[in-house]
């Protein structure tokens, strides 16, 4: 068992009033800062906020959902949460098989029994252990196969399992709290003392992002037509309405946050033609456009800005506004077809 800094169950807040000019610098608030940073990094991010595909998979068929994620470098275990129900299976509900992998690494496959009641309270939890930690974007895939009975997928989510400790490494950013206590010397140690805390604070600032703002995916095959399609040259809403998003407030002057968005899409007709997916937040009114020009499913990415938190507001909203982001898509020519299989929005590292 390796050593590491502890990750508590609840946030740890340091007392800023305890540090006053002219007073002795004591370890207590500095230790609180270290514990707070390790809590923020180690509790795990919500990579895929729960969403409702509401899709039926008939017995013997499967659907693959793909997400472009950027987990924290502390993530070692991704927990998939699947709400599903089935009919017609021998067990009264259905049997599903979940297959997951990240970037083509270790594949984890397991079968689960699901009930026949709508919107079950007890979801399936499926663990995907990572082969390596990473600070890069990851192509995370989950395939749901209806083994026995027809299956309705009511929900998909994924979060990082919490850690109990963070190693004293650059990726984990753990710090030895015993070096911050009363009567210990102040020095710039690697993962130790005040200098180590300063490094951990900058690490936590990058790491403790909203790693998933909005994630949506459907089957990534045009043949089954699971993907959303459009065949008109006028703009169509991919969703019924704009999707509300709110980013993290970074600096004193910040009123906006930057969203990184990845779209998996395919354009079905003609090499010289294109389709578009656009994003328009209420806050700015500006439209950001992704141009889709490949006949097979590819990832396309861009950024746009949304409101960031107002920490003086009871619900954090800026100017009491829900910053709804409208996602539209359209083709260049009315007779063409554009498939959109994934929309993945997250905050990148600042």
């Amino acid at each position, binding site marked *: *068992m390796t050593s590491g800094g502890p*990750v508590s*169950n*609840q*946030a*740890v*807040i*340091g007392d*800023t009033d305890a*540090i*006053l*000019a002219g007073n002795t610098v004591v370890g207590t608030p*500095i230790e609180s*800062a270290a514990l*707070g940073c390790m809590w923020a990094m180690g509790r795990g991010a*919500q990579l895929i*906020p*729960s969403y*409702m595909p*509401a899709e039926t998979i008939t017995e013997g068929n499967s659907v693959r959902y793909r997400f472009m994620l950027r987990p924290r470098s502390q993530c070692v275990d991704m927990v998939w949460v699947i709400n599903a129900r089935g009919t017609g299976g021998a067990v009264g509900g259905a049997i599903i098989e979940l297959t997951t992998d990240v970037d083509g690494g*270790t594949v984890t496959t397991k079968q689960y029994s699901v009930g026949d009641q*709508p919107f079950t*309270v007890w979801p399936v939890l499926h663990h995907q*252990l*990572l082969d*390596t*930690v990473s600070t890069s974007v990851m192509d995370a895939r989950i395939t749901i196969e209806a083994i026995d009975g027809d299956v309705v997928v009511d*929900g998909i*989510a994924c979060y990082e*399992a*919490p*850690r*109990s400790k*963070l*190693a004293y490494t650059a990726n984990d950013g753990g710090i030895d709290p015993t070096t911050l206590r009363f009567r210990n010397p*102040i*020095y710039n140690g690697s993962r130790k003392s*005040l200098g180590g*805390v*300063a490094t951990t*604070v900058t690490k936590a*600032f990058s790491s*403790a992002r*909203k790693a998933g*703002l*909005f994630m*949506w995916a*459907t089957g990534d095959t045009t043949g089954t037509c699971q993907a959303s399609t459009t065949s008109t040259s006028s703009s*169509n*809403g991919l*969703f*019924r*309405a*704009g999707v*509300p998003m709110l980013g993290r407030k970074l600096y004193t002057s910040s009123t906006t946050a930057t969203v990184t968005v990845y779209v998996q899409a395919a354009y079905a007709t003609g090499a010289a033609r294109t389709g578009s997916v656009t994003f328009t937040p209420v806050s700015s009114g500006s439209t950001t456009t992704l141009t889709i020009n490949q006949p097979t499913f590819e990832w396309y990415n861009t950024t746009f800005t949304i409101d960031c*938190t107002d*920490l*003086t507001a009871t*619900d*954090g909203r800026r100017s009491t506004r829900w910053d709804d982001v409208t996602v539209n898509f359209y083709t260049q020519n009315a007779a063409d077809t554009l498939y959109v299989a994934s929309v993945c929005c997250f905050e990148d590292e600042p």
Partner: protein
Amino acid sequence: MSNSIFDSYIRFPTSAFGDNYPVDTSYVRDCIVSNANHICDEAGQQRINFVTRTGQTLNGDENTADQFQRIIAWKCPVSVRSDGESYRIVFRVRGYCQAAVNIKVRVILAPVGRMSAAAEITSATYMQEVTTNSAADGWLTFSTDYVYLSQADVLNATQSLSVYNAVAGADRGGTTFCDTLLSVWYQDTTASSTLFYLTGLHAREYVGT
């Protein structure tokens, strides 16, 4: 409840805390402690976020008894504040009634395994309710748009968990976490078995004021 001095992060060079540099109290306060507090304040996660696809219809459950009926329940690990209460779950619900009759819609945040029958709850920090009769799809307006768990509720929701601390399933350790379900319920108050269709749900953590 911003716990930082500036409601934000203050940039600083880590070299300011190098060996042989004097330790400046204001630097320690602003760059180390206040910054760490801000990082915790803004560490809340987006737990649920969806609006259903255009043209996609959802089936509400049959509501013959006209009791509170659960539409959906999402497993939702919730962050815990330093005072022992949960982060506020700021929510937004979208949907419409099958017909223009009064329907109560409730949002409940409850510990896993302790999701009380919705009809028995009259007032709680973890429940909010609104009445709607709109047959047009739209966002509902609640008088308060967040729910949260008290210290006692957080204790009820806290579960032990064995976790990995390294890749490839190595180095297990024990921890605890606050495991909850966020659920949406509805009740036809006119006993006419009218359904409510959920078309969107947004739930994000916020440290609160």
